[in-house]
């Protein structure tokens, strides 16, 4: 038995959450310290997994399997492939930066961080993080659902309790119900797969490696692919089921928005890939045009809606819809380039949008407004945050030498292979994105500061700077040296293509 690193990564947040809950409520700093320590621990371990994954060997690695419910063939089965390893790293990074951002600021003018019940906040946040890790590393369908749901429900509390007062109740409920419905529909599909597999082979197992070989009939795949895929993809913000996402993003407190857009949306996309496409490849083949259509609409429509937003956070929220549309677009091609790009885009968008929300949060905490026309001059007051946002903006626009380009380019190549029209139409989003990103950078950071804000905009804290730098580092690193991540994802793509029967 090897060192059970994936198990430890997954359960670190849960244990941390328990420990945090045991700290007396008044000792806020202790709660924060424990949170930070465990986030660092998880980050180090996930980086270790990332760097010691054997890319030459490929496939699933760091396997751990424990019997959990033998009667139903449920095992606690962890393992990562080239697709999920970057996402584990991403989760580690976002968790680490999310804790830093939520630390709080001693400056009384600044309403930053989490001041109200930080103990519960970090506990719920870590519950969420544990669920996310669990989904990325689970190779057992039941456990995947188990962790998936764990990742969903803390969102409700995190948004409803610490969110933006005006919309939090509505948004939290909408989000939770949407995601819950989506996941349970997928669950039914998953159960159907298990039983068909049982009837075919006589062994009852939720093990996805076994289910890959189940040989579902074409009809079965055609029926079940769509509910399973769309059920998960709801969390990925796929059009037309994206409606919950901007509301949720806007209402959530900063760290939760980061988690939500940065990691949770990937959770949906990843599960849609792992369960939808990998287990029902022929169904995917049948429905890919529909998915491609949805994704194409999401890409352009999301960008357009983002363009017309006046609320800074809504803008970022809708831009996520657009960018996650690209991920799904990549999936829908079912070819090497598309999947490669989708894998990269998941990571790239994760760090980018986490950075966006972090900066938006920092601005809101100081300016107490998010209306873009009411903001201005932030570059002078908080130059570091401005720099971070600009780098994020360039990633978002798909500017070369930043991770966004490295990710989007292969997606478009993949789409070219399948349907050139979609590639051409979707590419409009690039210009729209450039337009709104540039416009907002100009207004928020470089326009003259309104007199009402003059004086009480302070610079961000050191912790914020560390968080911003960490996120920027990855975006630039991947942009300049795609080889940091591309070979890893290529092995993951091989793993998917193996099931699609293609090259």
């Amino acid at each position: 038995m090897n060192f059970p690193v994936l198990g430890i990564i997954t359960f670190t947040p849960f244990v941390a959450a328990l420990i945090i809950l045991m700290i007396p409520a008044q000792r806020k700093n202790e709660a924060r310290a424990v949170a930070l320590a465990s986030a660092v621990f998880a980050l180090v371990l996930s980086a270790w997994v990332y760097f010691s994954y054997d890319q030459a060997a490929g496939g699933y690695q760091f396997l751990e399997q424990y019997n959990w419910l033998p009667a139903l063939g449920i095992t606690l089965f962890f393992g990562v492939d080239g697709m999920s390893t970057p996402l584990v790293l991403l989760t580690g990074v976002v968790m680490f930066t999310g804790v830093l951002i939520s630390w709080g600021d001693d400056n009384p003018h600044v309403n930053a961080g989490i001041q109200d019940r930080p103990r519960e906040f970090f506990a719920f946040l870590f519950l969420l993080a544990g669920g996310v890790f669990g989904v990325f590393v689970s190779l057992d369908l039941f456990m995947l659902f188990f962790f998936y749901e764990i990742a969903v429900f803390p969102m409700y509390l995190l948004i409803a309790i610490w969110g933006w007062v005006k919309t939090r109740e509505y948004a939290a409920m909408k989000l939770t119900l949407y995601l819950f419905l989506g996941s349970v529909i997928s669950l039914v599909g998953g159960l159907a797969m298990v039983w068909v597999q049982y009837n075919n082979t006589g062994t009852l197992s939720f093990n996805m490696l076994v289910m890959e070989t189940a040989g579902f009939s074409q009809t079965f795949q055609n029926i079940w692919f769509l509910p399973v895929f769309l059920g998960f993809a709801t969390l990925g913000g796929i059009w037309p089921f994206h409606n919950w996402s901007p509301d949720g993003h806007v209402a959530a407190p900063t760290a939760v928005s980061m988690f939500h857009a940065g990691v949770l949306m990937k959770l949906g996309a990843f599960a849609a890939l792992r369960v939808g496409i990998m287990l029902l490849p022929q169904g995917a083949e049948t429905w890919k045009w529909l998915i491609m259509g949805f994704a194409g609409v999401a890409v352009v429509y999301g960008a357009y809606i983002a363009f017309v937003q006046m609320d800074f956070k809504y803008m970022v929220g809708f831009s996520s819809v657009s960018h996650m549309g690209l991920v799904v677009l990549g999936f829908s091609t079912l070819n090497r380039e598309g999947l490669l790009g989708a894998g990269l885009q998941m990571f790239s968008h994760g760090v980018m949008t986490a950075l966006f929300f972090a900066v938006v949060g920092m601005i809101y905490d100081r300016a107490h407004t998010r209306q873009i026309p009411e903001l201005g001059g932030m570059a002078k007051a908080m130059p570091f945050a401005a720099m971070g946002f600009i780098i994020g903006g360039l990633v978002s626009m798909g500017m070369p030498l930043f991770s966004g380009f490295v990710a989007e380019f292969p997606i478009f190549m993949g789409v070219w292979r399948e349907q050139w029209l979609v590639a051409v139409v979707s590419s409009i989003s690039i210009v729209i994105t450039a337009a709104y990103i540039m416009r907002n950078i100009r207004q928020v950071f470089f326009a003259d500061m309104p007199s009402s804000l003059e004086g009480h905009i302070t610079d961000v804290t050191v912790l914020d700077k560390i968080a911003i730098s960490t996120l920027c580092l990855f975006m630039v690193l991947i942009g300049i040296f795609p080889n940091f991540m591309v070979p890893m994802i290529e092995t993951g793509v091989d793993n998917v293509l193996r099931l699609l029967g293609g090259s």
Partner: protein
Amino acid sequence: MDFIDTHLLSLILFIPAVAAFFMLFLPKDENKLFQWFALIASLLPFVLSLYAWFEFRSIQPGFQFEESYDWYAAIGSSLHLGVDGLSLSMVLLTTLLTPLAILASFSITEKVKAYMMLFLFLETGMLGVFMSLDLLVFFVFWEVGLVPMYFLINQWGSANRNYASMKFMIYTMGGSLGLLLAVQLLGVLFGTYDLVSLYQQWTSLDPDSALLGLSAQTVKTIAFWAFTIAFAVKVPLWPFHTWLPDAHTEAPTAGSMILAGVLLKLGAYGFLRLILPLYPVEAKYFAGALAFLAVAAIVFGAFASYAQSDFKRLVAYSSVNHMGFVVLGIAAAAFAVGTEDARIALNGAILQMFNHGLSAAGMFFLVGVIYERTHTRDLEKFGGLFPLVPVYGGILIFTSMASLGLPGLNGFISEFLVVRGSFGVGVNSVPVMAVYTAVAMLGLLFTGAYILKGIKKVLHGPMNENWAHGEHKLTEINTREIVVMIPLMALILWIGLYPAWILDVINKAVVMLF
């Protein structure tokens, strides 16, 4: 030395970017330090490219100083660098203009660190376009150059900078959208982005075979226009030029220098490096349209320039006018590939790129010099300044004459070659080119008119007393500024008197390429 020989191009390319990165860690608020650091960091590539110029063996066919590194192997793209005579002259122009522009920006006092960093990044972006032999890497650098330029205009520009920088960004990004798509298409079709092999495979594609459900001919035509529009926006060709006057006018002086001196060349370079070799058939077929647009740019550029009352706008429109000649030469060459006339026209076009780089940079700098002192660019507010600033006046007249195409200065040589080449094409093969050339000659007439108008309004006529005394008293051009102008003027004169040293390299490249 061995290391330098084997990594010459990547050194030239990355020294500015690495230097800019290091600037991040320099202490705050040390403006002098930033300025000198940036200047030295940009002089290093210049020295290296001079070295490359002398090491370059113009008779050897193909690309030289080639280097190739793994970049994005998964989609078949590598960092493949290499130069021929065409690109080497552009590299030289870029590495020359950048230190001059940085020197010209010593008067910038705000956010010097960020300014200098952006400039160095910009240099890497431009050099990358000229050096890359990989279509994707070409595109990467093509796009990346936009960002520093955007911020240079947006942050250090004048009053209307927000509008201008946005327009610049959206125009060029929108223009390169088609390029992006076409690049993707090529990558998908051939699985590689290496230019050398794309030249081969793309042109030898059977025009009747089916691609993406359309005939290869249609696809190629669409891709041709996608490329063309991207480059036409950048050149800029009429009617895609409207971003240019705004951007030029609002940009800080050094930004305008680089914009006019190098950035516009990127578009023309794209025509030469990509469109002519990749789409010889289409280029020939549509050369008439290109020539028409080029002539329109020449004529309208001249007219528009004449109508300006803003000194900087006047110079900006003159760029449209001059770059029109570049495209005219290219169009003529596309019409009659392989003929002597075509070669002459191409030689002219490439030399015109180089020359315009020198004179436009000089002109913008001189506009900047006077603007810094008077804080106005309104031609009506100048007048009779020659007695006040005789040295400046002399330099301005000299540079203007180069722009006007006075024999003995560089502009004459290149414009003559273009006209000679395209007229030759007109006489020998495609009669319509003769008409276009004739109209272009008319445009040349107006070039003289607007340049003389500019000189007259600034230097001659009744003196505006406002600038003669008191707090607004105009001061003479200073040493630093003269240092900026000396290399430009020297080259202008040298090429004007003895163009062979550079034409030789260009001509050999043209002969080998086309």
